């Protein structure tokens, strides 16, 4: 089980069945904690739907009391190929 965190302006952005593209950060313990990835994923308000868990922060860093589950489908590379 991995623990992830996302910043959104509204939790409505996470609802619905569609596949989402999100910038999430890992909360797994260790020196890489809080580093980001851009991913394709599915998010569910049912914390048992997916193995990985997601917590949410709002516009100015406020932690939402709601928890979600998340399935990371793959990493998205936004950086232009010339820099890779």
């Amino acid at each position, binding site marked *: 089980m991995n623990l992830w965190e996302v910043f959104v302006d509204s939790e409505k952005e996470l609802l619905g069945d569609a596949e989402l593209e999100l910038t999430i950060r890992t909360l797994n313990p260790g020196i890489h904690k809080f*580093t980001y990835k851009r991913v394709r994923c599915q998010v569910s308000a049912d914390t048992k739907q997916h193995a990985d868990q997601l917590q949410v922060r709002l516009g100015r860093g406020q932690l939402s009391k709601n928890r979600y589950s998340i399935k990371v489908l793959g990493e998205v590379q936004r950086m232009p190929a010339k820099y890779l």
Partner: protein
Amino acid sequence: MAAPRSNREFIEACIKSGDAVRIKQEVDWENEAGAIVRRACELEAAAPFMEKIKDYPGFSYFGAPLSTYRRVAISMGMDPESTLPEIGREYLKRTNGEPIAPVVIDRKDAPCKENILKGADVDLCKLPVPLVHEGDGGRYVGTWHAVVTRHPVRGDVNWGMYRQMMWDSRTMSGAVFPFSDLGKALSSFYLPRGETCPFATAIGLSPLAAMAACAPSPIPEPELTGMLAGEPVRLVKCETSDLEVPADAEIILEGEIFPDYQVEEGPFGEYTGYRTSPRDFRVTFRVNCITYRNIATMTISNMGVPQDEGQLLRSFSLGLELEKLLKSQGIPVTGVYMHPRSTHHMMIVGVKPTYSGVAQQIGQLAFGSKLGPWFHMVMVVDDKIDIFNWDEVYHAFCTRCHPANDIHIYRNSPGTSLNPFASPHERKYSIGSKVVFDCLWPTDWDPVNEVPTLVSFKNVYPQDIQDKVTGNWTAYGYPPVK
């Protein structure tokens, strides 16, 4: 006493004078270190030197380096007991002299090259990058540092303190405001040409190099550091670019700024005492090389409510640089002071009011200058008011500033996205508004019959009565006055 040449010499001097404490127990990089620094700032306590960091053996932290005037005095090699006007006069004396050019030393003599990470070894997470405040958008690598760049056409060097958040092991994103030197170089040259901009971030600088990096002075920062220190600053060439960095810095990150790729940055606790600027796509830095000293110390400024160096040091240098500017234009100013608790938003200017409109002239010059985006209130008082004494300034403001005639508002001027009072639209586009509070008696009033007389102990009683009353004060039964 010589000014400390490095962060290490500065820590030693602060410990000796009681202005820093050595924390030997292990401290967590996630929140705990930040919370210690924050509390020290709010209590105006000694700076914490944290020698043991969880997960990061061989590294230490030094927090709140210049958040008290005592430590500012120590950084300049002055007695920590020096008063603010004394420190200010010394800053003006040193920075009005001849620029002192830096010297470039051999890399084998540069402490910052003791450890070098390149290629696949580059990982910012190998450094103890702190989570400064709970709820921040990320761990901040750069909170007390200098981003070193060179102007692509003019060739002059810029050291600027622009916050940098770690996005992943090799990527940082930061708030480089559009009106800053780096912001202008990026928008005028690198972005239109689609070229990457080489940069180096130096962390754990000598306190005077850090002071120069956040001073709004037109003098290039390496020369300004030399002037402040009274001797040349030692630089060394980078591993991966032609840039030169302070050789005694604790940690150096080298890399490139992308012209056409940005990642999210923020939110972050800011000098206004709030998290105001929104999370947004901001200037993005790719790190290609990390060099650092053995037992490197990472410096942390924790911005929030007063007082930290974001307010104290910036108020100090913004006020003094404005004083230089106003004097250079022949305006009869007697002093300029920014109270750190105004979060460097209010300039208090003392002036000999020998002609009408001088308050507006001061305001327009101040707001129209390079310093202007950083404050939005100018309060002008006459030379009889002690600008360092808020009680006197506040009394003048509340009694002399005519609500209909003496408050002058300017709209649509440069501001910052950090202004808590600004609307979301104004924040996004760095739009500001400004106000001048003219607390001078109008020059067309008859000074004898129309200007009110200040009724105070010092102003209305003859000197012999004042001396008698002060001399007898304890005899009257009062405790002594400090």
